[in-house]
């Protein structure tokens, strides 16, 4: 049924349609509306029986999820940013134990400086945690991927993170098609755990594993993600067959057939990039887009297949490995081993900095002309950066960086963004 609603509410409805049995909630912007929505559905009795537990921290949220998932309950939670870092130990634990928990990450920057706006630093920090990471381009896709995520998680007995851009998607009202309960029930079978705490068949879960088997356990986690490379597109096809619309999958190509330049990106910026690419195509630029929808497992073969005939690749990412450069870029480069092409990394949108079509057109034009620096920061304000560097060179006690920059900027409230 078509509805105009907020992304968070749409995700809450999608999760509810998946009949979760335990939901753990700890508030952090911009994830709050999702768990609020689910809390209301449980409280009203629409989602009975389901336990909605207000926990005392994200660490507890994931820990409760670990307990309930190991007891055979379909389990969901959501977080973002500092919350994901605060639960990090339990994030690794959940995947190490092979528990099919589904978690929404409403992507948000990590402080300091504290910043509540969108980028991908949070989920990227957990890229090696063993969780699968699926990125949504729109609210419709976020909704659809959640339904697929439960199926994928439970088939593989591995946890899945659904990443959706904080505020840009979570707080955006747009048209979504909410499936019926029958449709979801037909697609997603009841949870049949591989391992479960059961008094009839007592098992010990979570034993210490020494050097004699640890490598093998880790390899098996990798093997499962490798299997996911096959299952993710299959599940996306099954989903399309059941629901009549495409969502998910490993990657999505946009106008890449004859493209000399291909932009690689993930998440909601893909929409603005499509507009940009259409505009540049009209000017005769052979440019296309590759949207990575599954970041873990990373689809090396699909990325290679999509990019290998291009002359240059521009990875536009909302994440940044300080001291190195792009996070996604590193993986894309691995996919292109042995292929000679021009590679550029554009770091954009950190901490909610707007990514505008105008800026994208400018930076991509520079790339097409091979005049771009290998690592570029979109719309970086060099003025305030250089002033701070000068300040630090001039005196030892130059003071706190963030506060200095804000003082240089003056009142920002008077601008629109």
């Amino acid at each position: 049924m078509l509805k105009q609603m907020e992304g968070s509410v749409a995700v809450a409805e999608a999760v509810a349609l998946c009949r979760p049995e335990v939901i753990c909630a700890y508030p952090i912007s911009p994830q709050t509306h999702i768990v609020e929505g689910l809390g209301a559905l449980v409280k009203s009795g629409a989602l009975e029986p389901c336990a909605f537990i207000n926990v005392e921290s994200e660490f507890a949220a994931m820990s409760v999820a670990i307990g309930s998932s190991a007891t055979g309950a379909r389990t969901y939670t959501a977080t973002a940013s500092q919350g994901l870092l605060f639960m990090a130990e339990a994030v690794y634990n959940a995947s190490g134990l092979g528990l099919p928990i589904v978690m929404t990450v409403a992507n948000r920057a990590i402080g300091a400086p504290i910043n509540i706006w969108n980028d991908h630093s949070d989920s990227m920090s957990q890229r090696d945690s063993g969780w699968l990471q699926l990125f949504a381009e729109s609210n419709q896709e976020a909704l659809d991927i959640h339904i697929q995520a439960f199926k994928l998680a439970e088939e593989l007995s591995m946890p899945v993170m659904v990443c959706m851009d904080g505020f840009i998607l979570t707080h955006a009202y747009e048209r979504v098609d909410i499936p019926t309960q029958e449709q979801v029930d037909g697609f997603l079978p009841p949870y049949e755990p591989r391992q479960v705490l059961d008094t009839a068949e007592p098992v010990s879960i979570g034993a210490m594993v020494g050097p004699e088997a640890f490598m093998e356990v880790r390899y098996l986690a990798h093997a499962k993600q490798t299997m996911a490379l096959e299952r993710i597109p299959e599940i996306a096809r099954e989903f399309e067959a059941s629901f009549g619309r495409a969502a998910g999958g490993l990657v999505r190509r946009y106008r890449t057939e004859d493209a000399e330049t291909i932009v690689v990106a993930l998440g909601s910026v893909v929409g603005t990039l499509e507009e940009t690419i259409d505009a540049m195509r009209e000017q005769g630029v052979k440019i296309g887009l590759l949207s990575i929808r599954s970041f873990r497992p990373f689809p090396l073969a699909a990325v290679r297949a999509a990019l290998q005939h291009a002359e240059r690749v521009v990875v536009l990412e909302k994440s940044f490995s300080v001291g190195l450069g792009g996070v996604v870029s590193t993986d894309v480069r691995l996919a292109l081993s042995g292929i000679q092409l021009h590679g550029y990394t554009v770091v954009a949108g950190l901490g909610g900095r707007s990514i505008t079509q105008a800026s994208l057109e400018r930076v991509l034009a520079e790339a097409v002309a091979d005049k771009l620096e290998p690592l570029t920061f979109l719309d970086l304000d060099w003025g305030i950066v250089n002033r701070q560097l000068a300040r630090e060179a001039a005196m030892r006690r130059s003071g706190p960086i963030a506060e200095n920059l804000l003082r240089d900027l003056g009142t920002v409230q008077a601008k629109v963004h």
Partner: protein
Amino acid sequence: MLQIRIHGRGGQGVVTAAELLSIAAFEQGRHAQAFPSFGSERTGAPVVAFCRIDDRPIRRREPILAPDVLIVQDPTLLHQVDVFQGLQPEGYVLINSRRSFDELGLGEIADRFRHERLITVPASEIALEHLGRPLPNAVLLGGFAALSGLITIDAVAHAIDDKFKGEVAAKNIAAAREAFEVVTERLRGPSAQTPTATEESRPC
């Protein structure tokens, strides 16, 4: 594509106004996208929200830098925030105020745009009368429907009904309809109020 930017203060339902607009557009079978420019703003702080309306799916997700429509829910923002930033020459402006553009000190700015597309509405007063609270958001949408004809007042009423419940919805709808009438009347009237006031006090 129609791009609308709404300025107001935390607590005035700025974000809700953008959401209502998107629902109204959806009611009319159009694609719409509403989103806030979020900060960790508290009650009273300047807030901006955006709405895009189009006949095809909306892919762009940047903030609205060059709006076709500007709605200002709180006139005290006019000299604090550059609300007119990027406004298209053909753009519409709707300001919540009992005063005219000139009385608000906007005469020079108003000259840059089409006068018949600029209007002020005493939305807080209308809201106070209907709701008992000076909440101008839904009221201004009624005014916007009249000013632009880009959405219908019925779609606005539908949207309010979708988002609110019972009495609150009914009162907001009544207030929005009154604003619709007020603006329609003023646009129809021989001395279309706002532009005239502006002309009278034009410095040249």
